[in-house]
């Protein structure tokens, strides 16, 4: 297979990199569906910044309880071994470095791992940040999941973010529909690439210099509904 990954496949790809035992926060939007593709033998604890530690799957229809919701304000469930905490304690978990992985969407990511995902800076936009800035600086590793380019074809991986920043130098790995790219001190390192592209193709779609990891692999994902 060689086509760009679907959103489901991107989420699946991120899920493969979440190790057993990790404490994970999934941002609102595409990151939320990562939970659906976790390999069944993995035990992972999902954290929601509104104070739910041990988020489980969506409840059955009719069983929704709007006092048990995710940060995205959808009804969820709690797994055995979960716990409820208040907002100050929840963000102590985040800011204190207790969340192993946070998966966030992005408007832009820079070559230095700067993240812009909360505001496009348009003058009439109503600004809203939620927990994004705390998650970006606090999680041990920040995974970005995002289409490689905007709908207009502009690169989202850039030399320098033009949108207002969420946090500076925080992104570990970028998972796009075309590639998996580590942000390293030596720059952007392509670890996986879909088979229909070569590095030059990917570079044309990217606003910052890429290099190919010596052990790079083909980015392949199963067919998913």
């Amino acid at each position, binding site marked *: 297979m060689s086509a760009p990954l679907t959103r489901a496949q991107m989420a699946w790809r991120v899920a493969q990199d979440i190790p057993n035992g990790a404490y994970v926060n999934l941002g609102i939007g595409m990151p939320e569906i990562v939970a659906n593709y976790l390999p069944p033998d993995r035990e992972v604890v999902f954290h929601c910044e509104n104070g739910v530690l041990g988020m489980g799957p969506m409840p059955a229809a009719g069983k929704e309880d*709007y006092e048990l919701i995710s940060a995205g*304000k959808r009804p969820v469930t709690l797994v055995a071994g979960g716990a409820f905490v208040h*907002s100050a304690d929840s963000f102590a978990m985040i*800011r204190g470095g207790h969340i192993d992985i946070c998966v966030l969407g992005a408007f832009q990511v820079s070559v230095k791992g700067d993240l812009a995902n909360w505001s496009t800076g348009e003058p009439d936009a109503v600004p*809203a940040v939620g927990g994004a800035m705390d998650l970006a600086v606090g999680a041990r590793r920040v995974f970005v999941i995002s289409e490689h380019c905007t709908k207009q074809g502009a690169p989202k991986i850039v030399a320098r973010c033009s949108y207002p*920043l969420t946090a500076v130098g925080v992104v570990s790995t970028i998972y796009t529909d075309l590639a998996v790219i580590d942000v390293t001190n030596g720059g952007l390192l392509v670890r996986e690439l879909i088979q229909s592209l070569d590095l030059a193709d990917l570079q044309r779609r990217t606003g910052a210099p890429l290099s190919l990891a010596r052990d790079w692999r083909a980015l392949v994902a199963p067919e998913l509904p």
Partner: protein
Amino acid sequence: MHCSALANARRVVIDKRVANVVQAVAGIGDGATIHISGFGEAGNPTELIHALIDQGARELTVVSNNAGNGHLGLAALLEAGRVRKVICSFPRSSHAEVFIGLYRAGKIELELVPQGTLAERIRAGGAGIGAFYTPTTVGTPLAAGKEVRTINGRDYVLEYPIRADFALVKAELADRWGNLVFRMAARNFGPPMCMAADTTIVQVRRIVERGEIDPEHVVTPGIFVDRIVEVAKPISEVAVLLGKASAP
């Protein structure tokens, strides 16, 4: 500090129950700063807010994670023109049309605070902390004008506490001493807000006898609570939004 006249102690007898939401919100004056608990539709003290609308206080500053949903609760308070300023992390929810309209019309002030910084500033207000350094917002527009300090090689922004004149909070159970337990994700900002107000007002689904709440399970001890009122069947904002219930 320098007076032994004891008549005006804040708490005269430890029975913090009041009969109804009207009494619960008595004394909230124009210009007050008010903490309002809740995240999305979980933990909003909707009945207290509606009592506050009826009570009439104006020019309020509201501290809350969101800025109201639909036309109920905080959104209704905004719509009634009672709020001068909102301090929150995420005013742009899916049903935040009231706030968005006021904001675009220049009729309301917004102080945008990241959610973790908001929770910590409120806790600091309750815990007597003068200010604290947080890594959140370093290098972003939200740090503009704020003091930045490098500590052990990492940059931090200085943030100040947020205290309120009143806190309006929703919890699950209380006893007459004001000990509280919450329910699931409705806990959110309730406990820190209870700590950080001159007068903390809590609506609960049920008031139980003193001693019924296990001392190991108390989430917010009564020392942080001033008034409790039973609202046995609080409105579900989401039910109204989804058309499954009607507004009060």
